[in-house]
């Protein structure tokens, strides 16, 4: 379905308005909806809903962009990623983020959108090798810390000192690894 304003792009925003019984509805693309919003021609923002243009198209899996139907306050729209400069407005327009750091920058804004598209926001799959090494180190540190706490509570101070040194060594190794990477 084409946008009824520009008649060029696919309509992804479906707007229904009911003001004192006067009903208006539009099928719009993201661009035209944004323009009308700027001009104040779309009033009843709560009834603006995104829809799937073609959820079955794997090659054009940008349908995610259409989840961003609801308009956001302008201070959020103008918020930009410090790494790549991409604004939230750009992201809502085409459903694509600018760089990996955008996920951190817009974490709060994206949470519900990602949940709606994926059903969950918690990764369960494979982990990159470098991250696995970090995880292992973290687990080891936690294990030693628990042993250290136990040793202290049992007043086994010699053992506690040994464990403390081991933890320090772990942290020092990690730091030198990081330096090596850079």
């Amino acid at each position, binding site marked *: 379905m084409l946008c009824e304003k520009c008649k060029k792009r696919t309509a992804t925003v479906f707007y229904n308005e009911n003001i004192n019984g006067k009903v208006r509805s539009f099928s719009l693309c993201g661009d035209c909806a944004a323009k009308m919003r700027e001009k104040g021609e779309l009033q009843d923002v709560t009834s603006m809903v995104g829809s799937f243009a073609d959820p079955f198209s794997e*090659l*054009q899996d940008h349908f995610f962009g259409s989840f961003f139907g609801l308009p956001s306050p302008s201070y959020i729209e103008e918020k930009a990623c410090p790494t790549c400069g991409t604004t939230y407005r750009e992201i809502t327009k085409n459903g*694509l983020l600018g760089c*990996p750091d955008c996920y951190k920058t817009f974490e709060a804004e994206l949470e519900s959108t*990602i949940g709606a598209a*994926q*059903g969950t926001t*918690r*990764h*369960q799959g494979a982990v990159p090798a470098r991250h696995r090494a970090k995880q292992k180190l973290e687990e080891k540190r936690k294990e030693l810390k628990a042993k250290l706490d136990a040793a202290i509570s049992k007043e086994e101070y010699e053992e506690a000192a040994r464990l403390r040194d081991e933890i320090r060594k772990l942290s020092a190794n990690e730091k030198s690894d990081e330096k090596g990477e850079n």
Partner: protein
Amino acid sequence: MTWYQTVGQHPDTVISSRVRLARNLSGYPFSSKLGAAEANEIIEKIGSVLEPAGFRKIHFSGISPVLATSYVERHYVSPDFANKTSPHALFLEEQEGLAVMACEEDHLRIQCILPGLSLEEAFKNARRTEQLLDENFDFAYSEKLGYLTHCPTNLGTGMRASVMLFLPALTMGGYMDALASRLSKIGLTVRGLFGEGSGSAGCMYQISNQVTLGFSEEELLHRLEDAIKQTIEKEEKMRKSISGDALDRLTDRILRSEGILKYAHMLSSSEFVKLFSDVRFGISLGIVNDITYEQLGELLVETMPATLTLSAEHSPKTAAARDMLRAKIVKEKLTHDNRGKE
């Protein structure tokens, strides 16, 4: 032998299996924000690992549109990738069905395509290539969201697994809409290979996972494979149930299609797909005996517009010339190949 020249498990119903992993290098913006220099740098870096591992590099900026499209027709790249104007390259290892697109929507799309139902093996191959790259580069990743991708629809595993199925009986029975709506409830999508939606001309459909986040790769693959096996079962049951008058009519249609396919002087692309589908169905029912799945598989790719054009000494200028060339290639493969064997 490439994926379309051979058959795998369940050849009556499954054409191919594909698994692709989306990855991005940390420290770079995503593809649409990459400068040409950065894109070339990524291509160089990827090449430095993949080329020594036996991959062939094809720099897409330097090839003709028709050659680029022929890679789409062989399912090694996406149409979007073929049409990109900024630097992008393909790394190909055809024997293993491995294709790595560099600077597609994501920096890396690592995919493996194999004949028949072989999701597990396709995943293993793609994963092996991914790990080779993982040893050398830092992928954009967060503990919470998994692999970070340009579009959030690929977050998490970054994995899209799909199986191309041949479902003539379910199509004829009008069950495809029902199947699509059932599959969508468990996070899977169905797409016709030719034409949109349920009216796929060649009765070929791609079923894939929609969700990429929140499940392990293995869970996603099992869920897809389970659904595929159930679909195959239903298709086979439908095929067996065809009998009596309906079977006579179907047999007549299939044999007529075989005749046209072998002896036509001109074949349009859409007519070829229809005849292909009938004859492929005929092989599975034991009605067509002197044509193999392998021959048909090769023809499906060789008769596509770009691949067809490339195969000719003088590229055909008109649609009629193309249709004649298509008919000639089909006739040669289906009549001469067999004579050669005898």
